[in-house]
């Protein structure tokens, strides 16, 4: 029986980050979904039930932090692990992670860290 692919959702308002991230992770054998518009994102997540969400923080309309609070307070989505995926500096990322109850963060710009950390967060999805 073929192994079911893990589903990853990437939310980012920068199209280029979405494309690049999707390619990298698709090559790793994941099924990657992207979302660049905050409208209806919670519904989308509820229906998709991804195994991991990579969430950009600096989006003008709805901040990644706001969105993570929303997802974590919603019964249909609160068990899905959220990882911030951002160009912010690591100090501020660490703070944001603990403040908003995300699983962790991945700094943008490094393919190897992206692959490694995504694998790690998928394997260590302790609820």
């Amino acid at each position, binding site marked *: 029986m073929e192994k079911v692919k893990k589903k990853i959702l990437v939310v980012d*308002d*920068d*199209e*280029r*980050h979405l*494309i*690049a*991230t999707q*390619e*990298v992770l698709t*090559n790793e054998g994941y099924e990657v979904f992207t979302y*660049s*518009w905050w409208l209806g994102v919670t519904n989308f997540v509820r229906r998709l039930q991804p195994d991991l969400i990579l969430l950009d923080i*600096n*989006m*003008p*309309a709805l901040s990644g932090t706001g969105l993570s609070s929303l997802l974590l307070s919603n019964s249909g989505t609160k068990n899905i692990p959220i990882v911030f995926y*951002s*160009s*912010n*500096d690591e100090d*501020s990322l660490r703070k944001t992670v603990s403040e908003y109850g995300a699983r962790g963060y991945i700094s*943008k*710009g*490094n*393919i190897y860290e*992206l692959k490694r950390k995504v694998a790690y967060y998928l394997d260590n999805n302790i609820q």
Partner: protein
Amino acid sequence: MEQDNAVTIGKLIISNECMPPYTEANIVADRFLKSAHLDAVALVEGREPIGLVTRHKLLFKLFKRYGFELYGKKPIIALTDTEPLIIHKDERLDVAIDKALERQAQDAYDDIIIVDDNDCYKGLVSVKQMIIQQSNSLANIIIQKEMISAKVNELKKAELMKSQFVANVTHDLRSPVNVITVVAELLNLDSERNDIEGLKRHLSLLMSGATNLRALINNILDLSKIEAGKTEVLNENFDIVTMLREVGETTRILIGNKSVDVEVIAHDGPIFIDSDPVKVKQILTNLTSNAAKFTEKGKIVLSLAAEGNNLSISVSDTGTGIKEIDLNKLFQPFSQLDYTKSKKNEGTGLGLTIAENIVKLLGGSIRISSKFGVGTTFTVQLPINQSDKTNAKTSAEAISLHDIKTIVLTEHEESYGKG
């Protein structure tokens, strides 16, 4: 502003009225009756003060029944307080007030005698005067405190804005760099696999990231140069009509294949003004590139008019428009509105901030009017610097748009004139 503890009592001397101690009481009374504002007179022997006569107490005594008969001819010293309060001129005001009010109730508001280092008589100070002065300095202290705390708040705010700015710059610079790095890795994989399609796709992504980064760096450098006051204005005499047409053509190119016409409405023939052409062009380009980005169909109109001593250039579009509550956000650095955000990649959020700063530098102003869903008009007013060296078509009169010509640049980049 005067510091409260620097106020010494000597500075408040209002009179130096004095009389010898053996003056007849009648004469002193006469002195009081003649000058209504005189409250007290010091009795001075040699230069040493030995007593104080107050209007109220002396007249009270004399005007009583038989008062003048009983006391009128007596030496005034016999009728007065011979232990008046004497204070050194350098005494602090608050200490002096305490001393004055510590006196017996009936004496508490008597004037105070001020002496110098040699105990010589300097003059009189009224308690009322002292108290007024004291409360003024208290008020000053309060005002000072308020001013200081306002200043502190201002600094805090500026500090906050600065760190917000730095945070934005940091993030916005890293973001395209990260795109470029990741895409470079993907390109690497493509070449290992001989994947030509992948190479093409990723190269264009790389270019887009690099272009964005370049724009951002240019903008940030421009802005910091302006803010550091390092931007020089180099005025030249140039034809604004030609510039407007050139900007119109560039705009048409930026629009790509969207069905948006560009119209340039200006005087038919050159209008020379004295200003900095590079900066004027940058302002116009920043405005038209926005119009091009945020307009999907309809038209973009560049027009020129004269208003008094100002030249007014407006860029209006039939694009997304801007909600009223967002209008004042636009000129803040890094502000990009959510409903225009699909184009975020193509911008830096600095264009309008820079345009506004340059306009100010050139002595002009910028206005915006917009209707959400209908369109937006930015109007730039620049002073017309009249110069006589070339043809004097710089005056408002000369620019009165009798001879208007509209140039329409359509999708196919052919231009034709009308009007």
